[in-house]
């Protein structure tokens, strides 16, 4: 039986109680319901804030990251005062300030095959606000195996996607995306950027879907996908159906338990771009590069987009964006020593692989990219 509301709660939720589709009964339903928010970043911020404000009685937050200054352009649950602190703690404090009548459980750990079922089984609905493919496939499979709805959102630059995957009623994430993109083909927000307000738009839509599911009202996005483009303000809805060949929810499914998702996707289960290493033998550090530049001829190949050169740049470089590199190899001389760099080392690692497969042997990757150069060699350059 759903819990009663106190007089204070009746006042707090009065605007909900006035809506016939919610009313007193719906608000009590929300009080007894639970939602797991996976990721407390761009999407997780508005999702958690609105679910807490709406009175969802039990909210779980999963994240192992700490708040960084570069998060604040869009991750509105965090603030200047929580830079360097755990995101789940930063978020919990904000949520409890908003609504101390609800229970917030935090999981300061990566969401993995080892802990996902244990964490997720306590919640009615999962909200996918992660920033990487392994965690998205994991979230999907957990929802399929536990029979729970997965409120999906994703963002990139000006584009957002929204759906509700529920294998009991319609397709799952794998029905739409049987396989992740090959490594390097789809950039992340850390590499390609994202409009700060975009996760606000998509995240609030995710929160809306989660509330409808918990209340049992309206038509959810099961079987539909929204493709939102902020630049031309277009909302395209497309239909989704179950994929009969789906390996996790199809009639001949062969994936019956959680797998190694980092191996499946070929990328790590996070979007940190501060590693930027191509491996010990292929890396050169910023300090080593500064020394090397003094001792002889060297081609510095910058594979960032042209507009990034306005943020920070090194002198005497050749700029060929990664996306154009395959078609412009003739501009390069494989006999020359070359160091490839980008912002933080992710794109340059891919460029290095491309160059090596094309027969270039005298190439190195600037570990950590131009940001590492800004930290180690030239502090006058900004870090972005």
């Amino acid at each position, binding site marked *: 039986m759903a819990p009663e509301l106190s007089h204070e709660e009746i006042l707090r939720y009065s605007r909900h109680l006035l809506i016939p589709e919610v009313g007193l009964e719906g608000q009590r339903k929300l009080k007894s319901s639970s939602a797991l928010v996976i990721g407390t970043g761009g999407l997780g911020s508005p999702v958690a804030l609105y679910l807490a404000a709406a009175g969802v009685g039990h909210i779980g937050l999963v994240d192992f990251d700490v708040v960084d200054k570069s998060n604040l352009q869009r991750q509105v649950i965090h603030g200047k005062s929580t830079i360097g602190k755990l995101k789940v703690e930063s978020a919990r404090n904000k949520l409890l300030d908003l609504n101390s009548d609800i229970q917030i459980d935090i999981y300061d750990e990566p969401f993995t095959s080892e802990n996902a079922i244990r964490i997720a089984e306590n919640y009615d609905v999962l909200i996918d606000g*992660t920033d990487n493919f392994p965690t998205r496939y994991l979230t999907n499979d957990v929802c399929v195996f536990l029979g729970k709805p997965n409120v999906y*959102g994703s963002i*990139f630059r000006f584009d957002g996607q929204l759906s509700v995957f529920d294998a009991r009623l319609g397709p799952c994430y794998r029905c*739409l*995306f049987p396989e992740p*993109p090959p490594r390097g083909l789809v*950039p992340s927000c850390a590499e390609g950027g994202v409009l700060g307000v975009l996760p606000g738009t998509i995240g609030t839509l995710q929160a809306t879907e989660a509330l409808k599911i918990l209340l049992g009202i309206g038509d959810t996005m099961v079987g539909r996908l929204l493709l939102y483009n902020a630049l031309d303000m277009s909302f395209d809805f*497309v239909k989704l159906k179950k994929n009969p060949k789906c390996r996790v929810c199809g009639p001949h499914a062969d994936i019956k338990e959680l797998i190694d998702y980092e191996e499946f996707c070929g990328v790590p289960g996070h*979007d940190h771009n501060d590693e930027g290493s191509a491996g010990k033998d292929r890396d050169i550090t910023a300090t080593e590069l500064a020394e090397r530049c003094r001792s002889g001829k060297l081609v510095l190949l910058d594979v960032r987009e042209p507009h990034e050169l306005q943020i920070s740049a090194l002198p005497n470089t050749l700029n060929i964006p990664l996306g154009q590199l395959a*078609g412009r190899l003739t501009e390069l001389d494989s006999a020359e020593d070359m160091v490839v760099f980008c912002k933080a080392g992710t794109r340059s690692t891919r460029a290095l692989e491309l160059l090596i497969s094309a027969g270039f042997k005298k190439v190195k990757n600037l570990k950590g990219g131009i940001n590492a150069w800004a930290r180690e060699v030239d502090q006058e350059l900004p870090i972005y």
Partner: protein
Amino acid sequence: MDMPIVRFPALMKFYVDNQIEFPCMGVTVAELLDNLVARYPALQPHLFEPGGNMRRHFNIFVNGEHIRELNGLDTPLKNDDKVILMVSAAGG
């Protein structure tokens, strides 16, 4: 000549002169993709695997329907049909 309208995600428009939406000839989806790749060769590795099959993180919708539910790459196209190319994105 049939000219469906093709729509590109942000992840891909870099390869098509930064356009979101433009008309492209094609009486089937396959022909439209061929014409796109002919006009923008950098698209080739993004749309197709080295063996020529379409990449599996890609989805194509014609007038809101997945081509899997229509005739796949042989789905016929007519003037002003809206062809949406959609790719998975992980950002959050």
